[in-house]
Structures are given as structure tokens and as C-alpha cells.
């Protein structure tokens, strides 16, 4: 177990790929004094049961983090910026009705 010395306290984030071509998915982290042992421990925790095709091990301090709510959770309704956020179903139906009615009428003549 840790003796509390700072050299044991570096945290390394581990990303795992299950099969070639799959995305790298964050799996968790390990503590290790340096890159070499971090790789060994990542292998022990996230790869010793043949469950991984590739591991990425990144020192936590090398990660640039953004967690500012003003940037990430703006207070106004911005649902139209989401792919599903802008509801066009009713507008589309109305447009179809406008375009479709005369065309159907023409077809009967």
C-alpha cells in the first residue's frame, strides 16, 4: 500500500480498445511513480484477462481539462444546437400538405 510519499501518487488515466478499429474508451486509472510502471499496472488492471487489444496510458497532469459551466452548460435554451433538438416534424408535415394537395388534385384531372 502507499506510504504516502508523493512519488507513489501520480495518477495515470487508462484508455482501452477492445478490438482493432474500436474507439479508445476510458476505463479508469492506476497510480504509479512513472510511465514504465504505469504501463505495467495498466496491463495488470485492464489487460491481463485478454480483454484488451490496445491500451493508452496518459499522465493525469498531461490532460487539459475544461469543466467551466458557463462554457459547457449555457443558461439559455440551446436545444436547437443538438441534432435532435430542432423539431421540424410539424413544419415538415405542413410543408408536405401544402405541396401535396394541389399535386393530388392535378393527378385526378
Amino acid at each position, binding site marked *: *500500500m502507499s506510504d504516502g510519499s508523493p512519488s507513489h501518487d501520480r495518477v495515470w488515466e487508462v484508455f482501452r480498445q477492445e478490438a482493432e478499429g474500436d474507439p479508445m474508451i476510458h476505463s479508469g486509472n492506476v497510480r504509479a*511513480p512513472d510511465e514504465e510502471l504505469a504501463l505495467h*499496472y495498466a496491463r495488470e488492471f485492464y489487460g491481463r484477462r485478454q480483454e484488451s487489444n490496445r491500451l493508452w496510458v496518459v499522465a493525469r497532469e498531461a490532460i487539459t481539462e475544461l469543466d467551466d459551466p458557463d462554457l459547457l452548460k449555457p443558461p439559455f435554451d440551446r436545444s436547437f444546437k443538438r441534432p435532435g433538438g430542432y423539431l421540424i416534424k410539424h413544419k415538415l408535415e405542413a410543408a408536405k400538405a401544402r405541396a401535396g394537395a394541389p399535386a393530388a388534385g392535378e393527378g385526378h384531372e
Partner: protein
Amino acid sequence: MSENAADLSGPTRDALAQLLLGIADDEFVIGFWDSEWTGIAPMLEEDVATSSISQDEIGHARALYEMLAELTGQDADQIAFGRQPEAYRHAALMNHARTDWAFSIARRYLYETADAVRLEALSRSTYVPLAQLTAKMRREERYHLMHLDAWLRRLASDADASSRLGSALRTLWADALAIFSPVPGEEVLVRGGALPEPMEALRTRWLDQVLPVLDELGLPGPTEQDLAASSEDGRSRRTDDFLWLHGQFTMVAASESGATW
């Protein structure tokens, strides 16, 4: 090339059984010693790594005991757990108790590097099942070697740890050389290629690989006395430390003989 046990001559089979027993006991006993670090290794992550490596070794021992059982018509569990302490054939290196972390790393470094040389040779064995098994074992041992090399260098870079490593190595060298004690009937094995090279040649190769590394790290190699020590009983000498461990690892099997689960 021999595909199976039935193709082997009597003398080859006997000598091969001796060879397999020695290697299997090495893996089995070091696996048990180092599994004692479970729960008390220097940090949690290392605890998992050491336990997992120890499990790997016991797994290798199991595969070797099974190959031996096929050769001699015995039962693998019976070979592993059913013998009296004096019937074990591990090298004297495995007679020592776990001691401290530097001692365990020193022992393991000597063992893993010697085992790597031995496995490389056996992966060229004319006894096909052994060549196949050792080729598989080598893939797992690669990581063991990397891990031990990392720890040896780490400890060597610290004054206190380095002096502990040094004194452990001085204690262990003569017994580590026993890994390459001649196997009874070795000539037959070398002639037929089941053991592609004599143990003496493997011992020289091992020393050529390991001594420059230890020298670079300021760690001691064997003394003239260590090198000259007789290896006659290198695999039959037993100690009180081992008697204690034997009591531990046979305890469950002995509690109800023949039990299965």
C-alpha cells in the same frame, strides 16, 4: 522429433521426467513464495502485479506437472501436493524465505533471467509438446522480465535499497547457480535434442547476459567461491524455510486426501 511420450526411449523418458520436475518445482515454489506479498506489497498496484505474476508461475508449474504426469502415468495434483519435502527438486535459490522486498526482487531477477535462457533453449526441444509449451510460456515470461528489470533498476538507484539488493544477491548467487545443475541423465537428453544444450552452456549464456547489467548498476556478481561451489545437491538440498512453506502449500490438500472440487 517426438510427438508424444510413447515415442520416447526409457532412459530419455526418465531423464526428461527429471528435467520437467526440476523446472515445475522451480515455478511452483517461487510462485508460492511471492504470492506471500499479496496484501502487503509496496503499493496496491504492485500488490496486484506481484500476485498476478505469482499466479502465472503456478499456472506454468501446473502445465509442466501435467506434461510430467503424462510421461510417468501419475496424477498432476499428486505430484504437486503429495510429495514429502525431500522429494521436491527446485533449485536451492527457492529454499529462501520471502524476506524483504529487495530480497524478493533480487531472487526473482536472478530466477526470471535464468528461466528466460532455459525456456529459449527448450523452445527448440525435439520433444514437440515441450517445445510448444515453453514457446507459450516465453510469451508470458516476457512481461515478467520487463517488470523485474524495472524494479531492479529502481531499487538500484536508491542508496538504502541498493545496499539491500546487494546483500541479497551476495546471499543468493551460489544457490541461483543451482538452477543450471546438471540433470540426472542429461547426456541422453542432449544427444536426442530434447534438451538442445547442456545446462553448463545455458549457465554460461545466463552469466554473460546478467553480469554486465548488474555491473552497470553497481550490484555484485558471483564470487569465485560461488562459481566453484558444487552443484551436485543444488536441486536436492532443503531448508527449514522450505519445510515451513511446504506445510503451508500442502495444508489444504492434506486436510482431506483425494478431495475434489
